[in-house]
């Protein structure tokens, strides 16, 4: 893992045009280059270069790929992943033959679907009659028992089927049961008359008729349902049979799309192709080798260090180990760090888990979170195609960490589903909240508030130190020293803290009267005032625009006032903001205390039910609140000290490039 963003280098290469296909393939296979349009680097040079339209539009390729995907999904086949992509198999896409295959498959599928529709309609018809029998709504059915005098029973059966009816023979072969819907009676009666239907007066036969016809209806319903299912299976089988060809087409289309994406960054002279892109420094040798080999040595490759380019144009690549993935997502969700600065993931992990544990410390409840997290992961593992729900994949990965943190703090607090099963290793939070503690490191809620404030100070100072490291690396000396988040800001914050702690220590009576305090305050405030002037002076020295003294003074004063407000107000509120950690922790203990109280009043099964329900409620509500509050503290109190979020994400084009990232 890199503590900082990965160092990058900019490649500019020229290859002979006839070699460009091979170069594209090799770069695609490597998948490490974040391409840059040459006109972005040097617009003047572009006048001498030209761009070329693709022989096949990428939209056409995408449309064809969507057609293939539609058929695969109709056959319940998972869409292929990047693993099926192999640049060695890439060829010019034969869109006509692909189209012909898709058309012919589409026609076959439609025919099958029409048959499935017919089966479905049969099922629907039988469903209706079946429902009337089940719900005892015989008044909507027309059940007759009788004999036919002329015509064939098969003919009558066929004619009745056009009304969704059934004709069932009795075992004697003479009598028949006709089941239709009463609403069709006005047409069924003349039809039966045509066949010389004579209603039977056999009471026994009438009685038997309902069970016989129900049995037949069941049978017909089952047959139609099976047929409908078989057609669906037939559709799946048809697509499965064609799937090797479809997947191969899909792969070729995808490769061509990616290749076209790479080519869209290329510029041309009459015989050469020029391109440029960012590559992580540790992969430059690989890229050089790949271009050299694929162009058979007929290439010119030039590398530019990122330091020679404007920082904001350098894409930011971050590598974090897999176990940090959920925390990397928390960082990504906020923004991309600036190039060359610290990768905050590991700090976020420590801060987030500590905050969560402080707020939600309980071994039993933490264990539940751990289990839920593992179950979520297992469920997605079993159904890799399942879409992310409310309990997403990322939540599944984050919960075990939160569970472990909660368990660790549970041991420190001595809390096991709210019960003090073992002595607390640090202090018993539940007892402190209940007011039952007279000795130990923490005796009352003020002690808890104090701990979280001190924790907040550590977080804020960590943020400040990270900021100073970032600024040092960026050589932003002025900002590193004289800024609200610079050393001067840090000194002012430290002075304020000292004054605050002495004030609290005196029982809220007196502020410290050390002689160095006014000196530090005056010097730092004066430095902050001078910052605007120094910044202007440095900017002019670097060729920046000149302004009148009045404008510069006004700007400097305004900035100074805002900075002071932010330092005195902002640092105070940021520090006190961490009291929410104590608040949530106290609420957690108080809620568990209430459920214990309720449970002791109830007794028996009721007591157990209250405890289970109480724990469940606390896990869901408190767990959610603690997770959100920890996130908020990271984003607002921690990140605001050092994380500018001005970076541009590194998005190389390769076989694993996501569809969403495609530019």
């Amino acid at each position: 893992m890199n503590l900082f963003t990965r160092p990058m280098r900019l490649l500019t290469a020229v290859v002979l045009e006839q070699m460009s296909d091979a170069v594209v393939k090799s770069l695609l296979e490597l998948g490490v280059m974040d391409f840059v349009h040459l006109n972005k680097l040097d617009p003047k040079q572009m006048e001498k270069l030209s761009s070329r339209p693709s022989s096949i539009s990428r939209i056409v390729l995408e449309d064809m790929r969507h057609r293939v995907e539609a058929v695969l999904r109709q056959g319940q086949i998972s869409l292929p992943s990047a693993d099926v992509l192999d640049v060695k198999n890439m060829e010019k896409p034969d869109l006509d033959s692909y189209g012909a295959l898709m058309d012919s498959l589409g026609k076959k599928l439609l025919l099958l679907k029409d048959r499935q529709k017919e089966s479905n309609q049969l099922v629907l018809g039988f469903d209706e009659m079946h429902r009337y029998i089940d719900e005892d709504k015989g008044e909507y059915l027309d059940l007759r028992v009788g004999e036919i005098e002329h015509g064939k029973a098969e003919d009558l059966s066929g004619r009745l089927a056009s009304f969704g009816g059934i004709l069932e023979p009795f075992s004697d072969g003479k009598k028949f049961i006709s089941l239709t819907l009463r609403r069709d009676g006005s047409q069924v009666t003349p039809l039966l008359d045509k066949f010389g239907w004579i209603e039977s007066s056999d009471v026994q036969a009438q009685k038997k008729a309902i069970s016989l016809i129900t049995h037949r209806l069941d049978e017909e319903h089952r047959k139609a349902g099976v047929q409908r299912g078989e057609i669906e299976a037939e559709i799946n089988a048809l697509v499965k049979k064609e799937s090797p060809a479809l997947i191969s087409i899909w792969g070729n289309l995808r490769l061509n799309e990616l290749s076209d994406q790479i080519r869209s960054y290329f510029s041309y002279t009459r015989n050469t192709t020029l391109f440029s892109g960012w590559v992580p420094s540790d992969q430059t040798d690989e890229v050089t080798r790949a271009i050299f080999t694929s162009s058979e040595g007929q290439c010119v490759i030039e590398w530019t260090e990122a330091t020679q380019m404007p920082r904001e144009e350098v894409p930011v690549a971050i590598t974090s180990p897999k176990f940090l993935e959920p925390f990397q997502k928390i960082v990504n969700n906020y923004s991309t760090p600036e190039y060359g600065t610290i990768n905050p993931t590991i700090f976020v992990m420590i801060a987030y888990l500590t905050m969560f544990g402080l707020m939600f410390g309980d071994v039993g409840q933490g264990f539940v979170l751990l289990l839920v997290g593992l179950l979520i992961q297992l469920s997605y593992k079993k159904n890799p195609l399942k879409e992310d729900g409310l309990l997403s994949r990322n939540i599944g990965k984050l919960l075990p960490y939160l569970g472990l943190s909660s368990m660790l703090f549970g041991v420190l607090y001595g809390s096991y589903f709210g019960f003090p099963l073992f002595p607390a290793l640090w202090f018993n939070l539940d007892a402190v909240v209940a007011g039952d503690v007279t000795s130990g490191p923490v005796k009352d809620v003020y002690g808890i508030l104090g701990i979280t404030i001190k924790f907040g100070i550590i977080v804020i100072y960590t943020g400040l130190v990270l900021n100073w490291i970032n600024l040092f690396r960026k050589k932003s000396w002025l900002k590193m020293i004289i800024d609200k988040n610079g050393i001067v800001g840090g000194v002012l914050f430290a002075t304020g803290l000292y004054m605050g702690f002495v004030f609290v220590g005196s029982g809220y009576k007196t502020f410290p009267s050390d002689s160095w305090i006014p000196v530090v305050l005056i010097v730092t405030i004066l430095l902050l005032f001078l910052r605007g002037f120094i910044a202007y002076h440095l900017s002019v020295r670097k060729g920046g625009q000149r302004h009148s003294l009045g404008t510069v003074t006004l700007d400097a004063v305004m900035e100074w006032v805002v900075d002071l407000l932010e330092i005195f107000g902002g640092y105070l509120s940021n520090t006190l903001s961490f009291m929410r950690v104590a608040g949530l922790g106290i609420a957690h203990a108080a809620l568990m205390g209430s459920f214990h109280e309720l449970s002791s009043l109830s007794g028996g099964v009721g007591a157990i039910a209250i405890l289970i329900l109480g724990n469940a409620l606390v896990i869901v509500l408190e767990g959610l609140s603690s997770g959100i509050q920890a996130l908020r503290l990271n984003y607002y109190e921690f990140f605001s000290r050092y994380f500018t979020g001005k970076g541009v994400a590194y998005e190389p084009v390769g076989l694993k490039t996501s569809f969403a990232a495609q530019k």
Partner: protein
Amino acid sequence: MKQNPTSLYGFINAKLRARIGLMRESHIIEDLLKAKGVVEAVAVLRDSAHSSVATAYDRTGDIQQMELALLYNEVEMYQEVAKYLEGKPADFVLNLLGKVEVDNLKNTIRLWYGSIIRRRPMRFRSEYLFKGKLLNDIDWTALVNAISWDEVCKALANTPYSEVVNAFTEQQLDTEGLFVLENKLDLQWYEQMMASTEKLSELDKNVAQSVFMVDIDLKNLLMMVRYGWYHKMDKAILSNLLMPWGKVYKNKSVREFVNKSAKERDPFVVIEKLYPGLNEAIRQISEDKQGSVRQDELMALQNLRIEAYLHERRKSVYRKMLASDPFTIGVSLAYFFLYKEEDTMIKAILNGKYYGYEEDYIRGVLA
């Protein structure tokens, strides 16, 4: 007690605005149009909010089952929004479900009519109807199984539709068809809605009525052109079918149009007064197509133009609602409109793809 609009609408309107935002970003309609056939169109729906529609197709291969799935989603959508509201606005939203109920009732009666009066077996088609409770307790099973108009009336006896259906006889329907009955059912729904708007706060009432007025104007205008002019409907029937609200109905020239003999009626005089821009567009169609298409085709094109024009006006009313006071019933109404619009387009495109129409043709019909 008077409800605070902020607490009443704050949550649901924020939720609906977010959904409207997603709808606007979504390219589902465009993707559906580009699909080469039903299979590809269904693939577009798989990863959308309409995935249940795709599942229905996988299971049955039946377009009408997909339409039923869409209808279920629509009903759920109204019920969900009503759940987040309370008091009169919640009742009002549930009353909007009455339109779904009236349309379902009309479909049921059409099936009944085909089966009993026209003697075309209903068979499985009754299973495509929505059978759950919408607004009133209607015994849909009794309705589809009625063997006479009296039984239809009996099945609707304890519903608000009783009076309307009882005003018709089986013989009358046999000779005159269902047109007047269906219009009366629509009219009754509008009456209920207008009454329902009266119970809303003044602001909500104005917002809701402004929407209904545009709808009513569209219906009245089409009624005049299609039936008053083209089908030369009798004055008494025509004046009975016009909905007694909106600027079209209240315009003096409309009364004159209705009172004239069928041969003397000229809808363009009325349209010129009410919608000069539309009149120009219709005349253009007449000039362009005269002689090249049959009179009924020309009529259909003119009707489509009127519908498109008023649809645009309706759209602009909803757009205005979204840009004005965020704490009114307007956001919900705009969401319903957009949802319904998307639903209608999905249905039309799926049917178009099923019957093999080209993308451009479907686009033309939807435009």
